[in-house]
């Protein structure tokens, strides 16, 4: 008896496909949610308008990287509103966001979605909720520290530190690029410095002081 050929399998990378043996349950109990999450994020991002979201999906439609995201921007807003804190702060989405502001400009409710993404990045960094060698937050952290110390960003040294902390072999892959940049005078391994770099530390500490931060 001739059997019908098996239907072609969808690409393994499609998020709509799960392995048959994967029996994870997609159910959320009310007690697992964080009811204060939405207010906290809304305040951080000057985003009270976030509550007016009609879930139209324009943000996801215009975001140039939404198709790489585990949760599209629209879904993130819905999850923030309802208090799905764990899922949101552990998502890849917030680190894929390149702050292009397309979503903010297209949103019919004028929600500052980019600011919401920044607020989520800040929350995730403050709580250390990212994998140890995950490039995006590591880059942000190293950049932050570098500028705090010297007042200016030193691209060369920053890149070295970044690769050492995330993926040392990545440095090897980029040797050619680094070499060409150095050859054309576009790469400097020197540390850039302000005249009075100490001012930066003082400035940042004093700004943070008044109410112990937002």
């Amino acid at each position, binding site marked *: 008896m001739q059997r019908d050929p098996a239907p072609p399998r969808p690409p393994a990378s499609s998020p709509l496909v799960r392995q048959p043996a994967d029996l994870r349950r997609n159910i959320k109990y009310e007690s697992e949610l964080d009811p204060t999450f939405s207010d906290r994020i809304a305040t951080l991002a000057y985003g009270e308008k976030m509550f007016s979201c009609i879930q139209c999906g324009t943000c996801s439609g215009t975001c140039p*990287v939404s198709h790489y995201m585990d949760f599209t921007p629209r879904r993130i807003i819905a999850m923030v509103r309802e208090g799905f804190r764990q899922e949101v702060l552990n998502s890849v989405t917030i680190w894929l966001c*390149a*702050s292009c502001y397309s979503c903010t*400009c297209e949103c019919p409710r004028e929600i500052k979605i980019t600011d919401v993404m920044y607020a989520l990045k800040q929350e995730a960094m403050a709580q250390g909720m990212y994998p140890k060698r995950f490039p*995006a937050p590591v*880059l942000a*952290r190293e950049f932050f520290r570098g500028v705090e110390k010297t007042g200016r*960003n030193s691209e060369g040294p920053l890149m070295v530190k970044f690769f050492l902390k995330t993926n040392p072999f990545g440095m090897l892959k980029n040797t050619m690029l680094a070499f060409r940049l150095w050859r054309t005078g*576009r790469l400097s391994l020197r540390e850039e410095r302000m005249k009075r770099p100490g001012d930066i530390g003082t400035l940042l500490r004093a*700004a943070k002081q008044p109410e112990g931060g937002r």
Partner: protein
Amino acid sequence: MRYQYFPGCSLKSSGRSYEESLLAVLRALEVPVEEIDDWNCCGATAYMAVDEVQAFALAARNLALAENAPGGANGKPAQILAPCAACYLVLLKTQRYLAEHADLKQKVTAGLQAIHLSYEGRVQVRHPLDVLVNDVGTDRIARRVTQPLKGMKVACYYGCQVVRPFAAFDTVHNPTTMDRLVTALGATPVDWPLKTRCCGGTLNGTIPEVGLRLNRILLNEAKRRKADAIVTVCPLCQFNLECYQGEMRRKFHDDLGLPVMYLTQMIGQAFGLSDTALGLQRMFVPPARVPAVQEGGKAAHA
């Protein structure tokens, strides 16, 4: 009144030719600029990802320096010139948010006071594209052109941050300031729908598979529309689009080979300034040249 020039960290290293060509062009147009003394990094997207108040405070130091610079604005708001699109956006956003949110202003003011600085809100943050088109004017620029770039087709790439989200000097959808400027130089701007689509920003470093694809989409489309070059106004966009073409060749086995120039380099070419003055020798892909030989002008390169 001198423009308070804020170079930003990129323009001193990977974006060196942007600074070189910008200052050369401004000199040729007799636009007075002075670099802000002891400026600090604007924080770009990194600071905003870590702590918002500190990010605004960091950027605000530069606003305060410009406001009180001896260059003097004679009572009018000081004009900060920020060529890097990311710096431009951070400074502009800081200025706007400080004006709108009193609680933020309070904290930032406390920070500035601790380092003996004050900021009253009397600054305007400008991008060179804005200054060239609106302050200098395309007419004046056209008059200074000695080598019209006739026959050259360019894809004007604005990127995200000069038009979004504030659209201070051009529209969010289908901006035209760069196209007008390029026309004044004698070249032809190509009509394409990706003028403001994100190049990926820092993703080329953090999530390169995604970043590379975003770069490639832009290069592909510009090439399809028969552009001879892409012209840009942001050092990160220029870096992303130009410097990864080798990697793209390895990965996708085709050679897009498109020159990616700074707008100021193109203007400088039309003004007849030398290659080194414009930092053209620093480009990875040889810069675009005018295809036809100009009568009585310099011979064109292949």
